[in-house]
């Protein structure tokens, strides 16, 4: 045990009741100054101490210099949503110093780099200056690394003042530097020296302390994009095409990182996969569709502007019934929007993507574990239903570190769908038709280029065709084909991931509906509604669209269903209205968008306001 001060002493010093494992730490730095390392180190150390934590990075669309904030929430109850309160603030950036100072909760603690010579005009908080420059000098590093070390100073100081286990910090650094001793030691030295300095020079006056718990065992800590990438690998991804765009970029980069580790061919050393950076999103999806057509498990990942550009191609994949997986890691639209802020604003566009009559299969993961799961499942669904499958993640889920359940090995064998190879055609004596609904489920059989049977080949097009894939403009054939395709999507409903439903109270008439990364805020809000206001609620998290009967039943069961979401127009509310017009009056939209992850408070207040109407 290497925490420097025992906790008893702290609470005495502060003169207040200690507040243990239930507050938020926000660090204000300049973008590109390397604070990412120190912040995730803090986060991971707390996680290893067994304390539930979440970290949210608020960063500008900029490479270097503009203010950036990182908020770590520790919650002994296990709440992971963003909070609006900042009990502990660390100010490292002169440009955001005033703002940072203002942000401290009354009674909270303010740590700052003492080389920032700005006025501190508050007396309702505890103030701790840190001689960052001096402390950083204890390790001798080249100037380009100086900033990184400077950021380790606050890690050390906080470790001391909040009682973070230095061993855990060491573990976090070892993870970060992949075990490389030199950087770990350099950074640890800075941390230790800073902790030592704090122990010797700062007097604990605030009530916030951290104590080890055991509430993180059985969890891992990762971000959604990493999870999605690894999930795709367990789905057997063969080709991933992409074009750089925040916040989707890291999904492709993680494929680049993990594919060689998990899928190199031991014998030949050859690659049985390809990750291809396209010239733009039009090309990225075109390649993915070509690959899906030729029988590969194929995907592309992008964000809103990319989806917009993929619209025409989506329609082609829909009409030609080509399996392909499209990840939309959403950011704030419309248009270029706020590229570094989170949002669930692409939902309705995905739902109606493409000109003419189209349908969509959309998966909606809520946490990294589910990103992993949908990462592989999306391929099964795409190949099974011979359809593009959209997966909507978002910046908060994709790029922030989440405490999540471990990835689970796929519990189903790969579903490659209805594919006929040479031997199948041999058996059928070559009698098959690409778009014929043999089984009555709306899904025809397909063959794949490279199938050398002389009757295997067919001609693919988006335009009118008959069951035999021959071109036709016959109106009856057209309608028949379209109706079959629509029926296929009706059937698909039943096989998509079911909603997660929590009926806490059989008699409760209030339902709350959410999806994706807003779950933690809603979970917490429900507890608050019950605890503080005595308002019961049941909960449903939708995990896919089009929705299944369970969704209808949940809505039917409740007089008032609040549909909570992170977009301006209440898009899930609109979709549910379209899917269940007869239940429309039971649905109430609770939606807003300001680019920040949802908070329990916002959800609670808005539901309360509606309830009090």
């Amino acid at each position, binding site marked *: 045990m290497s925490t420097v001060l025992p906790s008893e002493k702290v609470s005495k010093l502060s003169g207040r009741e200690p507040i243990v494992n239930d507050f938020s730490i926000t660090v204000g730095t300049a973008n590109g100054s390397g604070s990412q390392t120190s912040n995730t180190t803090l986060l991971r150390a707390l996680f290893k101490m067994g304390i539930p934590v979440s970290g949210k990075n608020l960063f500008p669309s900029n490479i270097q210099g503009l203010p950036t904030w990182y908020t770590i929430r520790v919650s002994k109850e296990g709440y992971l949503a963003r909070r609006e309160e900042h009990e502990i603030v660390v100010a490292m950036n002169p440009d955001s110093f005033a703002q940072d100072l203002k942000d401290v909760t009354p009674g909270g603690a303010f740590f700052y780099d003492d080389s920032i010579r700005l006025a501190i005009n508050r007396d309702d908080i505890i103030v701790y200056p840190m001689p960052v420059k001096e402390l950083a000098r204890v390790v001798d590093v080249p100037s380009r690394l100086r900033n990184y070390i400077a950021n380790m100073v606050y890690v050390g100081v906080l470790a001391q003042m909040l009682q973070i286990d230095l061993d855990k910090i060491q573990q976090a650094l070892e993870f970060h530097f992949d075990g490389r001793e030199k950087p770990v030691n350099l950074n640890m030295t800075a941390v230790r020296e800073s902790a030592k300095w704090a122990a010797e020079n700062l007097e604990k006056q605030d009530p916030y302390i951290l104590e080890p718990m055991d509430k993180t065992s059985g969890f891992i800590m990762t971000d959604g994009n990493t999870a999605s990438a690894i999930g795709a690998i367990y789905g057997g991804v063969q080709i991933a095409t992409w074009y750089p765009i925040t916040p989707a970029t890291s999904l492709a980069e993680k494929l680049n990182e993990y594919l060689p580790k998990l899928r190199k061919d031991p014998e*030949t050393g050859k690659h049985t996969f390809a990750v291809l950076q396209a010239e733009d999103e039009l090309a990225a999806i075109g390649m993915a569709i070509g690959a899906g057509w030729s029988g590969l498990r194929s995907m592309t990942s992008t964000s809103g502007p990319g989806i917009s550009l993929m619209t025409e191609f989506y329609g082609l994949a829909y009409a030609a019934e080509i399996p392909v997986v499209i990840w939309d890691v959403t950011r704030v639209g419309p248009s270029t929007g706020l590229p570094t802020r989170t949002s669930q604003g692409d939902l309705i566009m995905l739902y109606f993507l493409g000109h003419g009559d189209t349908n969509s299969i959309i998966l909606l993961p809520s946490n990294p574990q589910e990103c992993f799961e949908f990462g592989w499942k999306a391929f099964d669904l795409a190949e099974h239903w011979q359809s593009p499958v959209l997966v909507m993640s978002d910046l908060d889920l994709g790029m922030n570190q989440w405490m999540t359940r471990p990835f689970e090995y796929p519990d189903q064998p790969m579903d490659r769908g209805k594919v006929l190879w040479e031997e199948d055609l041999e058996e059928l004596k070559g009698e098959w038709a690409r778009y014929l609904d043999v089984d009555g489920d709306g899904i025809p059989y397909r063959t794949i280029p490279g199938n050398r049977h002389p009757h295997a080949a067919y001609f693919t097009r988006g335009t009118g065709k008959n069951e035999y894939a021959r071109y036709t403009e016959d109106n009856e054939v057209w309608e028949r084909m379209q109706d079959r395709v629509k029926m296929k999507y009706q059937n698909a409903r039943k096989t998509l991931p079911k909603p997660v439903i929590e009926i806490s109270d059989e008699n409760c008439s209030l339902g709350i509906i959410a999806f994706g990364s807003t779950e933690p805020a809603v979970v917490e809000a429900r507890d608050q509604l019950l605890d503080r206001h005595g308002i019961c609620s049941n909960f449903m998290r939708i995990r896919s669209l089009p929705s299944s009967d369970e969704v209808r039943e949940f809505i039917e069961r409740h007089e008032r269903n609040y549909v909570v979401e992170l977009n301006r127009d209440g898009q899930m509310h609109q979709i549910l209205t379209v899917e269940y017009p007869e239940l429309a009056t039971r649905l109430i939209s609770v939606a807003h968008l300001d680019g920040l992850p949802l908070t329990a408070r916002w959800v609670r207040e808005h539901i309360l306001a509606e309830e009090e109407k």
Partner: protein
Amino acid sequence: MATQVNLAGLTKAEYRGHPSTLCQGCGHNSISSQIIAAAYELNIVPENVVKFSGIGCSSKSPTYFLNRSYGFNGLHGRMPSIATGAMFGDVTLKGLGVSGDGDTASIGMGQFKHMLRRNLDFVYIVENNGVYGLTKGQFSATAERGLELKYQGTNPYSPVDICAEALIGGASFIARSFAGDPKQVKELIKAAISHKGVAVLDIISPCVTFNNDDHAMHSYGWAKDHEAPLHDISYIPPREEIMLEEEFEPGEVREVELHDGSQIILKKLERDYDPTDREAAVQILEQAYRNHWLITGLIYVNTDQPTLAEIHNLPDEPLNRLTADRLRPAADTIKMVNEMMF
């Protein structure tokens, strides 16, 4: 009398497609015939070819040849990306695409250029008529400045030169031809199919309905009058004795050996043109552009450039035949992966 078959044991009819629905006399139809002839003479098994196209009259033509090959008629201007993705499925297949000048040089410019950079192993035929056929006669990007069309007035813009674009863009095989010169078209298609890498064939293919006035640079009349072949070209399959109809004096021909051992024999005409010299290619295209010469033949070839499949270090074994156990990491890896997280 037995029907004649080639070395693949197939009759020529087995290389045909559906009847063409293009206009009678359309240049595109002649090119389809030469694709059929080339494939037949190359003894290609149609199942080993995959056809692609964008949208346009030209892009319809893959329906009119090689019925036993797979085909994908994609989106306007987007053939390159679809083909790029599809060719990863099975690297033992040969890709053959037909596009139009609008499809390639207008809406498709970006994808065209980027496919070249990747050196996809692919035959890319542009059926170039200087006009949008399927939408009834608007200027395409290859229409010459000053061209007059019935409902469109006079074209004010300088034309895109497909071959020059291909060359600057890094294509490894570039040729120009004319649908009215079937023998040359056929030999070039054979060579293009044997080339390993992207082969761009810019074939002047007159639109008899919308752009065939004799003074129009994509008309039969103009092309017939102005065609200036760089050489007389013959393709010699691999491992075949060189048996040309005529004997050559030394220095009268150039030979280019392709990756599969086949050879292109170029018989000199007016000039001694070396298609492996990029600088010469740049120059001849520049001169031709400026002087409105319709030079035809093999403009450039580079047999050393790595293909996309090589760049991606793909095995010869078709990726699309890998079974689940080869694609999904084993069950025992999941623990390791979870440990790789934090």
